[in-house]
């Protein structure tokens, strides 16, 4: 079957620390840098957990202690590579039927690290649209998120 695959979103940044520290900050320290405007928990974000193993869970814990799934760890290869199964819909709600991939690589550049992020399989958003369609229209859906996003940048 032919499907239209949108091109993956590819981004990169260079950070001043070596790959092992960049990898640790990205994973273990995710809750310290993740923008609080992009939280699934209704009570706001307390921490983000990326379990340090392939097959591990990836979730957020809200201020009221509620755990909200984000996806899974598909590949755990510190300090060079991390692949996450991103299961959050466009409305930032966990959808067990949605699978998109976020691959992050950490390459040494001088004394720093080049961090490259690729978010792919975006065509799967189309297949999961049925489950998320109603969320888009909700008060906390897409429009609200776009508003929050605009304020954050």
């Amino acid at each position, binding site marked *: 079957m032919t499907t239209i695959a949108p091109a993956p*979103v590819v*981004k990169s940044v260079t950070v001043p620390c070596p790959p092992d520290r960049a990898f640790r*900050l990205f994973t273990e320290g995710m809750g310290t840098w993740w923008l609080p405007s*992009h939280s699934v928990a209704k009570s706001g974000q307390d921490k983000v957990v990326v379990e340090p193993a392939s097959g591990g869970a990836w979730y957020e814990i809200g201020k009221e202690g509620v755990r909200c799934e984000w996806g899974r760890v598909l590949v755990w290869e510190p300090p060079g590579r991390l692949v996450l199964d991103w299961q959050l819909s466009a409305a930032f709600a966990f959808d067990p039927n949605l699978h998109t991939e976020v691959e992050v690589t950490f390459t040494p550049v001088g004394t720093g690290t080049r*961090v490259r992020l690729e978010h792919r399989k975006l065509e799967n958003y189309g*297949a999961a*649209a049925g489950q998320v*369609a109603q969320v888009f229209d909700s008060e906390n859906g897409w429009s609200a998120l776009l508003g929050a*996003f605009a304020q954050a940048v």
Partner: protein
Amino acid sequence: MTDITALSALADPTRRRVFERLAEGPASVAEITRGLTVSQPAVSQHLKVLREAGLVTGTAKGASTIYRIDPAGLGPLRAWIDRFWDAQLEAFRKAAEAEEKKP
């Protein structure tokens, strides 16, 4: 919003098949119907939804209309994800710089 319509338009399995048929190449309503088990009016209705969602475009050719994929259909969502990671990686970079400055 366009984003919502584009995604929900593809939720219907038949409509997705119409969309996938057009991914193979431009076609008229009659040509699309030939490969499916639904009636021509039903296909026309699906095309109308896909067109309103910005996923396909139609151009008149003689007596019939030729439909084709609008490659920008999933564009708004992709553009949003693009900006999203821009902001997140910028936040990550700042955090890494702050950590490096720690004694």
